[in-house]
């Protein structure tokens, strides 16, 4: 209704979105692995952001490392013969 809409616009909109932001930050905290503060309730949002940055950087490094190792593997393995078995096991 129009009255509700005008009321919500007059209210402090930054307080509403601050709660929203806290929800998003705690959701981010839940995504971090156990070793990185996931279970700690008293962590500041700045800390969550910091750990998230560290986590993303380490995941990027892992992608680089795994790409390198997969490249080595491709040189030595006949991929096509085992491909069907791998796909089946991954999709089940």
């Amino acid at each position, binding site marked *: 209704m129009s009255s509700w809409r005008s009321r919500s616009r007059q209210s402090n909109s930054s307080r509403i979105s601050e709660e929203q932001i806290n929800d998003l930050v705690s*959701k981010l905290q839940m995504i971090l692995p156990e070793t990185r503060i996931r279970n700690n309730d008293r962590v500041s949002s700045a800390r969550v*952001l910091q750990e998230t940055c560290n986590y993303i950087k380490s995941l990027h490094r892992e*992608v680089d490392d795994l790409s390198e190792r997969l490249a080595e593997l491709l040189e030595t393995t006949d991929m096509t013969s085992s491909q069907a078995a791998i796909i089946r096991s991954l999709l089940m």
Partner: protein
Amino acid sequence: MNRKNPLPNSNPNSPNSSMQALHFLQALARIARAAPKPAHSARTRQIRHAAYASMAHSSRSSRRTWSRALLHRLRQWQQQRPGRLLTVRRRVRIVTPITSRPEEPARAETLRQLVPGGRGMEYCNLLEETADYVQCLRAQVQLMQTLLDAFSS
């Protein structure tokens, strides 16, 4: 790092990660079949490219800003000379500099650099996109590790 921890929201049997896995496997098979055989560094680069492309193409992420930004970045990489793929980054800045957002935590700037497309986002969206990006990235890492383990045994 211990990769065997069971993690929430990372169901390996969900349709999203199946699409991601399939896409990556197809790309991997193409790379493996390439003739003449590319050099090790070129192959590494192609696999890395395929990893990020699979992330961007998975059904959950195709609606996301980060996946569109990532695909754009990947296309730019492909169009450059092979020797310069990983060193040159051209970024066209179409938004105002981040110094105009003092109400954000300091770490938000680093996050914006890490998440594809992060620079143009509102802080609220950045947090959402980051959560999605991290889950996709982690699924890709798990997928690659699973493949390595499967092929090495």
